[in-house]
């Protein structure tokens, strides 16, 4: 939902990042306003997942330069958990298994850490139990998954649903979905997409990182950005995604080179 007078939630300028000596991000610029859904597409190795992880504060990346302002705060100065508490959420491409820690306990601790940050009272186990059961409906998840260890033995689809469940509970201002569609069959994809759509609100924003156009049939973005070699090469609307689907990423590279703004 694009509105001209919406508040800027995230502003990224000239962002660079290096992993193990290789520069992956080479100057990313992006501005996201409240209520908008942005998709970042690009071929493998273009840096789109790195971009997501750097926003979330993954410790593997070094030499992070540039500017990332999230709701007026310099995001790069914050520790990962502070970013999370401030309202940055990343749904992982490969959600981690945490043996021995019950999913329900994990969800409650995460939820209460955000509540506490917002100056709200923490929910006790009973109130939280009511809340979480309500939120299960968003992703049509079986309550039995609450009693299991976090993601342990979950199928790919169940893990992704669990991610969206966390998102539903934490109500982030900026939700980054890193290749959430990967490894999902069509039914699971619909459920996950439906969950994301329900959670999109005028006051928050969603950043979809994806390789394929398929997801965008279900979550319709306001903007589509194409990333290549650590930069955003071109920006358009959902039609750009369809064009990419039919013509491939080579087409964007060609366009750029003709225009003379491609990487030298």
């Amino acid at each position, binding site marked *: 939902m694009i509105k001209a007078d919406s508040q800027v939630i995230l502003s990224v300028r000239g962002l660079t990042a290096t992993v193990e000596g290789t520069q992956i991000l080479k100057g990313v610029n992006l501005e996201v306003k409240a209520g908008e859904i942005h998709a970042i597409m690009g071929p493998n190795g273009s840096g789109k997942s790195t971009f997501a992880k750097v926003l979330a504060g993954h410790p593997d990346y070094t030499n992070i330069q540039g500017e990332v302002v999230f709701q007026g705060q310099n995001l790069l100065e914050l520790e990962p*958990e502070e970013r*999370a508490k401030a309202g940055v959420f990343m749904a*992982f491409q490969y*959600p981690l298994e*945490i043996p021995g820690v019950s999913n329900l306990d*994990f969800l409650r601790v*995460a939820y209460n850490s955000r509540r506490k940050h917002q100056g709200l009272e923490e929910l006790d186990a009973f109130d939280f139990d009511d809340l979480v059961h309500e939120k299960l409906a968003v992703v049509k998840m079986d309550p039995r998954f609450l009693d299991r260890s976090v993601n342990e033995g979950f199928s790919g689809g169940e893990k992704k649903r669990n991610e969206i469940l966390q998102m539903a509970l934490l109500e982030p201002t900026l939700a980054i979905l890193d290749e959430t569609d990967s490894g999902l069959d069509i039914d699971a994809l619909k459920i996950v997409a439906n969950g994301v759509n329900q959670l999109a609100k005028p006051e928050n924003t969603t950043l979809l990182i994806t390789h394929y156009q398929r997801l965008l049939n279900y979550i319709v973005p306001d903007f589509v950005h194409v990333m290549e070699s650590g930069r955003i090469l071109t920006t358009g609307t959902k039609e750009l995604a369809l064009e990419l689907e039919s013509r491939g990423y080579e087409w964007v590279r060609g366009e750029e080179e003709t225009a003379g703004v491609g990487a030298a």
Partner: protein
Amino acid sequence: MTTTVKTFVNQPYKYGFVTDIESDTIPRGLTEDVVRLISAKKNEPEFMLEFRLKAYRQWLKMTEPTWPNVTYPAINYQEIIYYSAPKKKEQKLGSLDEVDPAILETFEKLGIPLSEQKRLSNVAVDAIFDSVSIATTFKEKLAEAGVIFCSISEALQEHPELVQKYLGSVVPVGDNYYAALNSAVFSDGSFVYIPKGTKCPMELSTYFRINTGDTGQFERTLIVAESGSSVSYLEGCTAPMFDTNQLHAAVVELVALDNAEIKYSTVQNWYAGDENGKGGIYNFVTKRGLCAGVNSKISWTQVETGSAITWKYPGCILAGDNSVGEFYSVALTNNRQQADTGTKMVHVGKNTRSTIISKGISAGHSNNSYRGLVKIGPKADGARNYSQCDSMLIGSDAGANTFPYIQVQNDTARVEHEASTSKIGEDQLFYLSQRGISSEDAISMMISGFCKEVFSQLPMEFAVEADRLLSLKLEGSVG
């Protein structure tokens, strides 16, 4: 090593202070005269001196074991002080008023108040300071139930026949190098006797404190549960921080007669040395329970977090038919700590059962080994054992090993062994931090999940304590 699993930094050891008191300390070194001196100082009956001398003579002929998966410089046994007691105290004190206030304060600081009004409710405590028992609480109340709970020195004066009957009956004087040393020079410890058919009305607990720098601590604990009785016993340990290493070589013997049950829990938090491995306690301990009677049960639960080196294998000899042995262990090592610990389950009687649940957590540059023996004797028809040994690694520089020994001499026995190794990885920590959970909380959640099966075996008062202790030990261990 990845970028943020940084050098492991321990939370400062909060029990590392030294109490300034006058001690009655004998000269360094060990000779037959020293053994006689210790016995004389304690005014022991003749049989005790003979027990000690026999042990000493055996010890002289023995050599230190080299098979454990630990390394340390040779110990000079002539440099150790074998007896040190707070002055002013020749005999067991009549009341707490006679105890040096500095010592009472020490125990207060350790969270073990001994004064009447502040005592832990429903837990009787025997407090041992360096080599000597300082005070035993709730004695009168226990006496009403016929339970004897006192220091072993006192038991030697008041109940010599019981001590003579059972001391060394489970761990013979020549059992191993450290047990022989302990048998020769032990200075004090706890004695528990639960009469026939009695359920001990409260938790019993011994609290060990090493204070002097060059003193070895050699305590001796003996628990006897008569037919149909039951008792739950807990020991806790701390020591000050010294740059040198102190030797702690204890022996614990448990005897359970027909239908008796003994539950023995340990929370061991001796000083572990600094992050470079300087200082700390060498904890070389022999603990063994004898399920002498039919349907008897002995259960060991240990939470081992301290000591520079831990060498202990609390075990059960399942002699009585249908007897049950259990071993639940959490051993945590950090920095340069080394642990070689596990259990021995020796099935002698018919239909005997044993369960072993061992959880090893290794962080920093530490090394943590599980070593366990399950032995099924030829007459142990229908014996069953289940062992589960799980290791968790934190960071990339820690080591974990499992050495199971299984000896089965009876076709009808069933022995199961499961083992797993997991790792707290950087990615898991990042995942949890992305959900607003700090690394410390994340580790603590994962550790308590990992240790759940063991902590649930601890007496309730101490389960929470153990959980907190582990978190404290790992605080700041992952940056």
